[in-house]
């Protein structure tokens, strides 16, 4: 084999290693567990009382947050989720703000917390398995004892959910874990437990989606009943009026679905929720990684070529020196 052949061979190896444009096997977007747990947030039922924000703080033993430069640091004032706050209710406002749940000259509330993605970017991004998705409940959990604090999860999440405590010498990631620590006491997500109107509802995702479908099928303005707390719990019969929704259950298809699903009268783009394709970014990233490094086949083949070439060159050099 002469120099030219080496050149070609190594080049081919290098190109194959780098390009990976035709990965052997695509990593499919994950599908939802039949026992997945989650939340249904119905923005039209939300009255913006923020009882959920307060209950979440208490259940997760998180400190209060104050507005910058406030003269009244007496009560919790989070503007967004953060290292100290796992859920907030945000306000959408437009024009005269006359009507609730109207895009024009209206206002609306929207919950922000972890979506518990079916195929979460944070879990795929985490290099040390600190972010995990429970195979049954689908809850995306965080283990600070494993975490190295690299914040790849913070950067990767399309919803901007994992947050970090930059102000602490011993920092950690903060994110909603659907109150999984309360399950052993027979309790469930604190935000849903305290929600007075049932705007945030806890349950199995399949049931929540059925409930969402029922609401969407109702004629706006007609009388109906709403469950509160958790689906299948003691409080299932709160009378109310059917709302007018935009034709979308957010979280049904985005990135293969999320376990917090949402209904709203205002388009979700206006509420800060991105349009995401059905194929998850985690699936794309892992398809690329598996294509390049699956079974270490390509790196080892490339190493073989390199070793061969390097050995020949070094031998040549040695013989020159002799």
């Amino acid at each position, binding site marked *: 084999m002469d120099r030219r052949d080496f050149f070609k061979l190594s080049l081919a190896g290098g190109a194959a290693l780098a390009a990976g444009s035709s990965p052997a096997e695509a990593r499919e977007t994950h599908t939802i567990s039949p026992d997945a747990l989650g939340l249904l947030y119905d923005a039209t039922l939300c009255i913006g009382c923020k009882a959920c924000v307060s209950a979440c703080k208490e259940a997760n033993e998180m400190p209060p947050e104050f507005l910058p430069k406030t003269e009244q640091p007496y009560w919790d004032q989070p503007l967004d989720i953060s290292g100290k706050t796992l859920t907030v209710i945000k306000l959408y406002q437009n024009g005269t703000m006359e009507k609730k749940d109207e895009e024009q000259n209206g206002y609306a509330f929207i919950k922000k917390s972890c979506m518990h993605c079916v195929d979460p970017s944070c879990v795929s991004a985490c290099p040390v398995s600190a972010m995990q998705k429970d195979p049954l409940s689908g809850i995306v959990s965080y283990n600070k*004892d494993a975490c190295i604090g690299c914040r790849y999860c913070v950067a990767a999440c399309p919803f901007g959910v994992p947050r970090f405590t930059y102000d602490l010498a011993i920092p950690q990631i903060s994110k909603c874990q659907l109150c999984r620590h309360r399950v052993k006491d027979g309790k469930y997500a604190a935000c849903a437990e305290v929600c007075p109107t049932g705007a945030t509802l806890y349950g199995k995702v399949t049931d929540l989606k059925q409930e969402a479908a029922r609401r969407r099928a109702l004629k706006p303005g007609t009388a109906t009943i709403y469950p509160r707390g958790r689906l299948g719990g003691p409080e299932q019969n709160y009378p109310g009026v059917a709302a007018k929704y935009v034709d979308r259950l957010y979280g049904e298809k985005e990135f293969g679905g999320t376990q917090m699903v949402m209904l709203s009268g205002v388009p979700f783009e206006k509420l800060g929720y991105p349009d*995401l394709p059905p194929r998850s970014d985690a699936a794309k990233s892992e398809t690329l990684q598996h294509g390049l490094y699956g079974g270490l086949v390509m790196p080892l083949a490339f190493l073989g070529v*390199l070793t061969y*070439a390097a050995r020949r060159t070094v031998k040549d050099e040695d013989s020159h020196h002799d």
Partner: protein
Amino acid sequence: MTEHAVSHAPAPAGGRLISPVTVVLAALALAAAVVLACRFVYGLGAVTNINDGFPWGIWIVYDVMVGSAFACGGYAIALLVYIFNRGEYHPLVRPALLASLFGYTLAGVSVIFDLGRYWNFWHIFWPGYAQVNSVMFEVAVCISLYILVMWIEFSPAFLDRLGMSGAKKKISKLMFLFIALGVLLPSMHQSSLGSLLVIFGSQIHPLWQAGFLLPLEYLMTAVLLGFAVVVFEATLVSLGFKRAMETALLARLARFIWGLLIAYLLVRVGDLAVRGALVSAFRFTLEAFWFWIEMICFVIPVWLLAAPAGRSNPGVLFAAAVMLMAGGFLLRVNGFLVGYETGAGWHYFPSLPELTVSVGLIAFEILAYIVFVKTLPVLPAQSATPR
């Protein structure tokens, strides 16, 4: 004289270690150490401007991503000398390897400054914690291994001094294997630094979200930067140590740079065209502005290095190298910072202490390079210098 000089084996350059230059460098490094002390006592937020909208600042994007790409000289030259069997570039190997050694070691160490829970960093290598689907896992493991491999590659330069000639002999016998690993590992992690962006999806501006071509683009620019840095360092070393320039050799190297640069631009612009992202370069946005600056940095060297006259002119070569380094810097800063948006209302610009650390790291690196070159056999011996 140059032709004659290059045939000499490496030798210590000698000279005084304490000079105005080294004192200033040491002062800058010390300032960085003070900031880092604050960071470890009061947390990342006390000294940096990073936030939940920009969780990665210059300590990652510059110190690690650009820093390691600037440290690809050893990789690029090893690729040329040992894999493509271009022995004539051999005099460039040791100086380039030394710069890479420092660049990478510091990039690796500086990761610790940025890791929030740094005491757990070993989890990346530990079965049970290690998460092999993560691009970050691949980057971390390959960079760590490469730093190790480079110290072994460089060890013949100092094992003699330590009186370990036996170890040197054994390592030299297996050197071809370390050389091969020294090409494989940077190929893997330099491409993966681009792959890190894949999972950011539409949070990355279309001008930089090249999807499955990201690893190729980052790898090609890493090799380009490696060559550019070799030219850059060779020029500075010949000026700083008052040595003859290896212009003839660098001019030939510039031919490789030119070809690779054309190939890179074809991939980069071709991808933008195919994805229909090129239109966003013609809007009045900050992203479009920085995109053009980045492209100019890559395109001007194409013109500078096109003719043999330009390639054999040290000034032109140096200018082209600096522009390429700026282009590679911008590709990474644009991809990870300028072109990154996770939602409305987030801003990031590095704080003064943050910049102090990055500058201090560079100063420390140059300082260590000077000390090593003066005391260890790195640069080719020159007839003028007594051996």
